[in-house]
């Protein structure tokens, strides 16, 4: 590439070829999952990653470790116990007064030092505001590769981490490797991986780690924390039934039809990304790669084409229903049921039909 202007041939760099790992990387073994503990509460994405990390560790024949950080006594031991219940073999317990509320400086330093001491081969974090903030800082300090928002993780034939994420453009996926650097780092969004089974009474080793931190050396101070009102938060990521609208609905007013059907079904509602960009729906209703990942029993997509960034957010749904005027829309490749018709006309009728059939107050209810 130094001789010739780069053509867009991805695998042309030096890093593209797997070489014999440099000596100082050979000690890097084991799979780690950063357990995101804040205010005594573990983010569920951490358990989803423990489930995924378990598979990778088994494939590699190495141990799976959870990394729990926090102020002493602030839910750290409980988090460690849960990590074992979900499948970790050991937990690195990193406790320090400065690790109370999340701040980048002490967390990044503690995690970087822990990696330097105990050397994981793979390090996974949730793609949350905390996880992304931390992962970017740690990967840069370690000068290693970091792949964001993966939708699939695997170990390939020569034991490298193959991290797959949707790529730029709309209907493609790409698999990214970090061949010659350690650790191999990736973030995964909440709800992309399934929740693993929890085994009561399963235990493991706790390895304490004392980070070299001092409050006086930390430039950033937390002045206050205002928790979200839980009533203000939607339950999209955990809803059993979700109704969503896309550009096919053609106007902000027509989104009422989606809200109304969702209301009739006791469901949550959402939308594709362009509607958020147009300001037709708030950002926390966006479903997909850069919005929420959902795993409902029933997902109804009205006027949504099904671009890859949308698809990866709904692939975990049990039954996907597409309402679309185009029988060849990409969504037809992953929907279970499709009806080729005008959603603007069908949605009101569907709301009525749902009420007629399933509402306990309706006389002629047919229960399945």
């Amino acid at each position, binding site marked *: *590439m130094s001789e010739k202007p*780069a053509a867009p041939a*991805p*695998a042309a*760099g*030096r890093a593209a070829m797997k070489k014999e790992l440099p000596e100082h990387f050979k000690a890097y073994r084991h799979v780690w999952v950063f357990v*995101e503990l*804040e*205010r005594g*509460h573990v983010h569920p994405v951490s358990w989803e990653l423990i489930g995924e990390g378990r598979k990778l560790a088994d494939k590699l024949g190495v141990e799976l470790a959870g990394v729990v950080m926090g102020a002493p006594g602030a839910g750290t031991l409980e988090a460690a116990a849960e990590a074992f219940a979900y499948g970790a073999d050991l937990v690195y317990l990193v406790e320090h007064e400065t690790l109370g509320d999340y701040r*980048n*400086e002490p967390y*990044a330093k503690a995690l970087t030092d822990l990696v330097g001491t105990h050397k994981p081969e793979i390090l996974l974090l949730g793609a*949350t505001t905390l996880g*992304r*903030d931390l992962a*970017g*800082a740690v*990967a840069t300090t370690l*000068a*290693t*590769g970091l792949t*964001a928002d993966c939708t699939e993780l695997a170990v390939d034939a020569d034991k490298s981490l193959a991290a797959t994420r949707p790529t730029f453009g*709309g*209907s*493609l*996926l*790409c698999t*990214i490797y*970090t061949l010659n650097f350690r650790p191999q780092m990736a973030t995964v969004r909440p709800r992309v991986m399934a929740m693993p089974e929890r085994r009561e009474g399963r235990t493991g080793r706790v390895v304490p780690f004392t980070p070299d931190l001092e409050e006086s050396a930390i430039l*950033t*101070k937390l002045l206050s924390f*205002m928790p*979200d009102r839980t009533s203000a938060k939607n339950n999209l990521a955990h809803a059993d039934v979700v109704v969503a609208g896309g550009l096919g609905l053609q106007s902000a007013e027509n989104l009422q039809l989606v809200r109304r059907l969702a209301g009739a079904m*006791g469901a949550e509602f959402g939308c594709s990304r362009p509607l958020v*960009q147009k300001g037709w729906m708030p*950002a926390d209703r966006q479903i997909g*790669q*850069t919005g929420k990942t959902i795993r409902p*029993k*029933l997902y109804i997509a009205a006027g949504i084409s099904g671009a890859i960034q949308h698809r990866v957010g709904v692939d975990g749904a049990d*039954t996907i229903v*597409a309402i679309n005027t185009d*029988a060849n829309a990409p969504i037809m*490749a*992953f*929907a279970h*049921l*499709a*009806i080729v*018709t005008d959603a603007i*006309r*069908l949605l009101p009728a569907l709301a009525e*039909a749902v009420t007629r059939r*399933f*509402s*306990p107050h309706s006389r002629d*209810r047919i*229960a*399945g």
Partner: protein
Amino acid sequence: MHIVVCIKQVPDSAQIRVHPVTNTIMRQGVPSIVNPYDLFSLEEALRLRDRLGGAVTVVTMGPPSAVESLRKCLTYGADRAVLLTDRFFAGSDTLATSYALSKAIEKIGAAFCAPDIVFAGKQTIDGDTAQVGPGIARRLGLVQLTYIQKVVACDTAAGTLTVERRAEGGTQTLATRLPCLVTMLEGVNEIRRGTIQDALRAARAEIVTWSAAEAGIEDVTRCGLRGSPTVVKRVFAPPPRAEKAATVDVSGRPAADADALLDAVVARRPALATDLATLIAGY
């Protein structure tokens, strides 16, 4: 007060199409825009400058055509623009990009004035990684403040900055010392139109253009593909489901079609009838 804002020129993603047969991205004719998330950071930088005095420098790494996006930022009111462009940068991943940009920011500091705040976009709409901002902060040894929804106070005399940060489950109010790196959340301010004077100045403005060497990058192996630890091994279309979607026949009468659709849903998963009845009853 000197503020540096990192921006990126990106294709307007809403208009990108993938070739249905070859699975390649069709970029021809797709207009380029300033990454929308960057504009919230630019606006915040301009507000701070308007209030506290000083200058805003925008910087980007990209192809020569990225001058257009820099010029756009000048029309909004930025004072100066720097383009970092070199074939050595082609194929950079986030680590290599943060290296090149951090070098350029150091050079901007030497050439003009060291920045008090570096702003970056929350993420880009083409890569969406949210990694470059934190990467630059680490390389420059700056405190990073990501997902900021409000700049509460900036005291240049005391050298402090107070912000509200969106965290998981709540909002943090944080105070830190300047210099630092900030990425703003989307939708937290409204991007100005810019004045006619700004537009005239932007049209005439000379945009500083640096090659890798001019930006002080001696080791180009840390840039571009060679400086990128991540490697794209494979690009592919997702496999379709084994079974194709079952299609519900359409009569054209919405009421009948709605019933047919519900029949099909319940036929596929009988348990959904009970689930729906429970949900509706509880609603």
